């Protein structure tokens, strides 16, 4: 494919969409899929065909529409007088399909009773860059992506820009790593670009493993070509010819869509040799993770791709200098790569106008827990947590009181009520003892026990510790044990003291980020909810009524009588 052919293909696709009577996008993301959206789509197709509308209706599966709690979702679009009209049907079932086809698609009469208002704050307060194609494209069709200006950034780069131009554009955008750390992406790219090595590699970290997080998954499933394009741009910028996507084995749908996308792109020379007839070569291969959380840590991920046991090693040297097979390697997260095509297409300046002074652009969050609108959202940096939880998220269900929000998963911390007006950016979140993390946002209400929450995350870290370094391997087990004692009302203040010492140890002496951040949920719940811990220890009560007090304490000398046997002396 040449650049001209790419532009022509885009034109053609856009025209087809505009000419269609209606575009019907059925959410095909994992959430809606598990609510039966795949069969809804088939039923839709059948009903459309039966109504004789098959030629005029574009029907396709699409990426996550965001409002996961109201699935299966179907978005209907129509191009009219230079703008798009949109309707969103929620909780779609078989019966509704027939009516929608008859009245809306056939008779141009939208069914108001089934519609979700698109002027709801859930939609109004969002700003979509990474998720811009949700609803617009079928993730399994390359042509759809091309129609949505896909690969135009790559064409722009290879035809008009030098590699350093691309780096400069990304640096100027102010984009920072979306995997959690927030390291400036442009700086990382320019470091790898300047590192010397006979080969270089681009790696996409798609080993999303935080409990309650599904941002990367949604991006991979909903817009796989976007990641490929982002990686290709990175490869062009740093001088790599080989890329790997390290995706976790628990995401079969993402894997299959990525495989499809790679095959499609290779077929038309958007990947492979002489991309878009330029001198730039780039290949992407998938590497499937086997379910270890620690493999999201970059040095462990490298080990795993190399075929070794996925355990971290001390840095320096950093992967930018010595990564895959000791060659300079650029590792970015899925969402980071997903931002890149838009940045190159629209310019770094454009991107840097969104967000706050130090945190640019948008952030995708997965809302979970005690919140009305569980789902996937994308918001500009700097928006307040209150807006996210109460406007977009719709607040706490059942009239309960908000208690805390956990960001950053097992590496993050909880943010209590007094900090709700905090702007969401890297620095503010760290200041209150949490972190941006990859975008999981778990909301807790008055019925959540913070000791129990800390215990849950500590168990997660204990189970996911790779076992290489002592503080993480043995320390998480000891902290977990103390949390178990606290939540069963059998701990002493001395135990609490010991636990705090252990938290300090893990933070400062663990080998990798997993161990260093493992104490965060404990430290932050202790910081804001110490009285809850004390209630468990001193009054032996759980204020939220979650923990079962006085459970037999298996590990510490409770005098359980020996069971009497029939065959006694």
């Amino acid at each position, binding site marked *: 494919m040449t650049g001209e052919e790419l532009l022509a293909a885009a034109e053609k696709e856009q025209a087809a969409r505009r000419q269609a009577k209606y575009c019907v996008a059925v959410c095909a993301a994992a959430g809606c899929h598990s609510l039966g959206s795949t069969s809804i789509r088939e039923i839709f197709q059948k009903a459309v065909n039966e109504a004789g509308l098959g030629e005029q209706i574009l029907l396709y599966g699409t990426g996550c529409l965001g409002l996961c709690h109201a699935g299966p979702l179907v978005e209907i679009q129509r191009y009219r007088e230079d703008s798009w009209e949109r309707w969103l049907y929620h909780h779609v079932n078989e019966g509704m399909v027939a009516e929608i086809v008859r009245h809306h698609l056939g008779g141009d009469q939208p069914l108001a009773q089934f519609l979700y208002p698109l002027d709801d704050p859930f939609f109004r307060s969002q700003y979509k860059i990474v998720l811009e194609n949700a609803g617009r494209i079928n993730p399994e069709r390359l042509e759809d992506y091309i129609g949505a200006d896909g690969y135009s950034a790559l064409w722009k780069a290879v035809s008009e820009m030098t590699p350093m131009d691309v780096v400069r554009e990304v640096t100027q955008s102010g984009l920072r790593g979306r995997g959690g750390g927030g390291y400036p992406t442009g700086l990382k790219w320019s470091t790898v670009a300047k590192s010397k090595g006979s080969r270089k590699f681009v790696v996409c970290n798609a080993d999303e493993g935080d409990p309650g997080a599904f941002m990367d998954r949604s991006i991979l499933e909903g817009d796989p070509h976007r990641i490929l394009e982002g990686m290709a741009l990175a490869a062009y910028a740093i001088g790599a010819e080989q890329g790997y996507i390290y995706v976790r084995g628990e995401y079969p749908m993402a894997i299959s869509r990525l495989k499809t996308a790679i095959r499609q792109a290779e077929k038309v020379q958007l990947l492979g040799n002489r991309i878009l007839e330029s001198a730039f070569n780039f290949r992407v291969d998938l590497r499937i993770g086997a379910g*270890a959380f*620690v493999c999201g840590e970059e040095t462990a991920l490298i080990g795993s791709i190399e075929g070794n*046991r996925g355990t971290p*090693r*001390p840095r320096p040297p950093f992967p930018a200098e010595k990564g895959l097979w000791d060659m300079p390697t650029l590792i970015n997260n899925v969402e980071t790569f997903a931002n890149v095509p838009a940045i190159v297409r629209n310019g770094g300046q454009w991107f840097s106008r969104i967000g706050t002074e130090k945190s640019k652009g948008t952030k995708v969050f997965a809302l979970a827990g005690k919140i009305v609108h569980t789902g996937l959202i994308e918001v500009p940096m700097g928006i307040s947590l209150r807006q996210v939880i109460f406007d977009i998220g719709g607040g706490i269900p059942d009239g309960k009181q908000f208690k805390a929000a956990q960001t950053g998963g097992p590496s993050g911390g909880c943010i209590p009520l007094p900090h709700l007006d905090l702007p969401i950016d890297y620095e503010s979140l760290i200041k209150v003892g949490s972190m941006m993390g990859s975008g999981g946002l778990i909301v807790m209400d008055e019925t959540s026990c913070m000791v129990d929450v800390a215990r849950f995350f500590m168990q997660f870290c*204990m*189970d*996911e*510790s*790779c*076992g*290489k*370094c*002592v*503080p993480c*391997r*043995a*320390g*998480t*087990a*000891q902290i977990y*044990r103390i949390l178990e004692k606290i939540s069963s009302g059998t701990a002493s203040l001395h135990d609490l003291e*010991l636990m705090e*010492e*252990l938290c300090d*140890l893990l933070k*400062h*002496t*663990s*080998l990798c980020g997993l161990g260093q951040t493992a104490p965060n949920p404990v430290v932050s719940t202790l910081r804001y909810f110490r009285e809850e811990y004390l209630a468990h220890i001193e009054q032996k009560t759980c204020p939220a009524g979650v923990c079962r007090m006085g459970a037999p304490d298996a*590990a*510490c000398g409770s005098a359980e009588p020996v069971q009497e046997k029939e065959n006694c002396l």
Partner: protein
Amino acid sequence: MSVKTLMINGQMVSASEDQTLLDVLRENGIELPTLCHLDGLTPIGACRLCLVELAGSNKLHPACMTRITEGMEVTTHSERLVKYRRMILELLFAERNHFCSICVINGQCDLQQMGYDVGMDHVRFEYQCPAVEVDASHERFIMDHNRCVLCTRCVRVCHEMEGAHTRDVMGRGGSSRIITDLNQLWGKSGSCTGCGKCVQVCPTGALFEKGRSAAEVVKQRDFLVYIKTAREKHLWIQ
């Protein structure tokens, strides 16, 4: 090879740039406890006992894997480092089942010695007492997982020195185990050459020769450096 000058605990010290910080410290008589490190094996920085403070860095660095740089300022025994080292040892002693009194290597054990070095008179953590196995299937050696600290010296010596790669690590976190081949009994291993290097490098009584009773084992570790030097200098090719 250029020479660098660095400051260790307030003292100026010179060192050649190919040395690790741990080498330099030891050369200058500053002892740090180490478990996973052994001269002759690739360092991995896993036990975290040799962590030191470097001026200008808010992180702690494992001396065994830290390359020296000009003007580096190192602190080896600050209050918190001393505390952390003791805690790490306490964690190790509480993790598996270490009973010095009945152990074959009592008196010669690296782990025990490090406990003394950091002044650990008791362990404040709960003993985890896991039920772990003993593999006595090999003709001459025994692997007692109760005493294993997962330092992976045996894994590395088998891979790097013997070239057999009989040993590796399986599982994760606290359930990590040193395994033989694909988690087979040692006696059934097809790749083990029976060289016994793993037994010699093991810091504790986890690997030992059969027929030894309590406090009867003495391990020989310096052979590694001989082999490594000989290999690097091609001493066996005349």
